[in-house]
């Protein structure tokens, strides 16, 4: 076997101390999740020693009506709040990109507040708001009863969408818009045929971010949900408080798989993982490839 050349001065990835370090961090990040997934197939209530393969906990989880209801609630909330966040976020980004107006800095700063404010503060603010200002009616038919949670989720999601879309619009060549206008396109037509296509990748990334944020949220939902509006994280929370059961493992595995699938789809659509990162740092860098 030919000996590979010695690692170059900056090829840190090929040095063993770093490889060891990366392997350690990888185990730290993934071992608990992998163990959780593997033991969801374990035929033992005690959940520790491997007793053989089974799907019975999946059957149990899928027959647990309240767990399924919570799961459907979570997906519904995520879908609706993503839709609203995309509209509001794109509009906010457009306003900041397109116009000069008094109070622009203030609006820009206020838009960043829901991103930086600690979750617990937003949670209690929503609790107080829906208790004192806008009491959400009890006992509404199904999708309507989730209204308060959806509103809360949109409030913390749409500023993220705005950041992602705005970063994308920074690379838009304004002359294209002028050209379209010169050629007689209306304001609406320019928006639809020139600006929107440029914006699309950031809408995909922002939508993915909003969906994940909503699906993931526990704290803010915990403060806005009532007894008949339980979401998946809130349901898992109440199950975990009592005990560690294989049923929770099974339900969690389903959600992890869903996350991985969604990530894969988002990457496929997006192409470049760095730009779906949620780290906008990667987005505001000038693109060095076409």
């Amino acid at each position: 076997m030919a000996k590979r050349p010695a690692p170059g001065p900056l090829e840190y990835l090929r040095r063993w101390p770093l490889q060891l370090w990366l392997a350690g961090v990888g185990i730290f990040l993934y071992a608990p999740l992998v163990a959780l997934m593997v033991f969801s197939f374990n035929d033992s209530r005690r959940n520790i020693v491997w007793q053989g393969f089974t799907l019975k906990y999946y059957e149990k989880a899928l027959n647990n009506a309240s767990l399924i209801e919570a799961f459907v609630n979570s997906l519904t909330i995520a879908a609706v709040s993503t839709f609203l966040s995309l509209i509001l976020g794109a509009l906010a980004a457009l306003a900041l990109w397109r116009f000069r107006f008094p109070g622009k800095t203030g609006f820009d700063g206020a838009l960043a507040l829901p991103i930086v404010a600690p979750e617990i503060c937003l949670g209690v603010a929503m609790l107080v708001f829906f208790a004192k200002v806008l009491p959400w009616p009890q006992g509404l038919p199904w999708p309507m009863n989730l209204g308060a949670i959806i509103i809360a989720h949109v409030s913390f999601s749409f500023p993220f969408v705005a950041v992602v879309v705005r970063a994308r619009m920074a690379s838009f060549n304004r002359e294209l818009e002028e050209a379209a206008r010169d050629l007689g396109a209306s304001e609406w037509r320019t928006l639809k045929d020139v600006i929107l296509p440029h914006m699309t990748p950031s809408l995909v990334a922002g939508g993915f971010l909003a969906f994940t944020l909503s699906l993931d949220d526990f704290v803010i939902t915990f403060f806005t949900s009532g007894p008949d509006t339980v979401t998946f994280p809130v349901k898992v929370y109440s199950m975990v408080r009592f005990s560690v059961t294989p049923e929770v493992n099974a339900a969690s595995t389903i959600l992890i798989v869903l996350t991985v699938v969604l990530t894969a789809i988002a990457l496929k659509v997006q192409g470049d993982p760095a730009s779906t990162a949620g780290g906008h740092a990667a987005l505001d860098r000038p693109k060095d490839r076409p």
Partner: protein
Amino acid sequence: MEQHWKSAKGLFSAVLGPPLFWLVLFFMIPMGIVWLYSFGENRGLTEIALTGTFSNYLRAFDPLYLKIFVKSVGIAGLTTLICLVIGFPVALAITFAPAKAKTWLLLAVMLPFWTNLLIRTYALIAVLRTEGYVNQSLEWLWNGLDAVVGVLGVGALGPFQPLELLHNNFAVVLGLVYVHLPFMVLPLYSALDRLDTSLLEASLDLGAGHLRTLLTIVAPLALPGIASGVVITFIPALGSYLTPDLLGGPDSQMIANIIERQFKRANDWPFGAALSFLLMYMTFIAIALQAMLSRRRREPA
């Protein structure tokens, strides 16, 4: 050029109106009410009188609560430090990895970050609890050792004592590091990725070791990125509710847990409101410090 709003008033209000309306009604007003309540007093069961008192804030400086504030800052600070120590080599390796490996490594760091927080915390509980995977493995090793000792006839080790890994401060810090590590690695990576590698190569060529190059060349140049990583990790760690709640013991309560208790159990909204605004102010201070630091770096020396 940006257009002045007066030249297209209709379009302007159609574009700015909805997000502004939402932000004011469903964010500013709820926050404002909490802020007002922090200067109020409880009257009866549900009435809160806005008396303009500062007693809620003063109460937060009661030794009992002050201790929790200090402890929260300590736990969040320790979490941030550990994340920095663990995350820096990871970010460095990703930065100088070949393009294909880079994509996969970034993805590997981000995937847990996209996985549900509750599921990740639950996974840690399963690892750490008394009958968890760590203790099970240790017990197996212990029993093996016990058998060997028995065969040798030296004496017995006695029954296995499981380690208490859950419901203490150790578990809280471990959980916070587990959850926040990606928050640190991503900004570090984006800062390191912008570095001019020729500076590093020059330093190495001139005979400085890797460690010295890291400390004297990379760290100062990447300081703004390090600062933003520190703030991005510190803020959510300081305000975390779920991790201390599920992994912590009775003495590992953090600020968020105290706030939750005021609103959901103790029914003392004014005090809870004051605590949550103190947390907000601490967040702002952290952000301001970081902004100052990065501005100072940008000014020519």
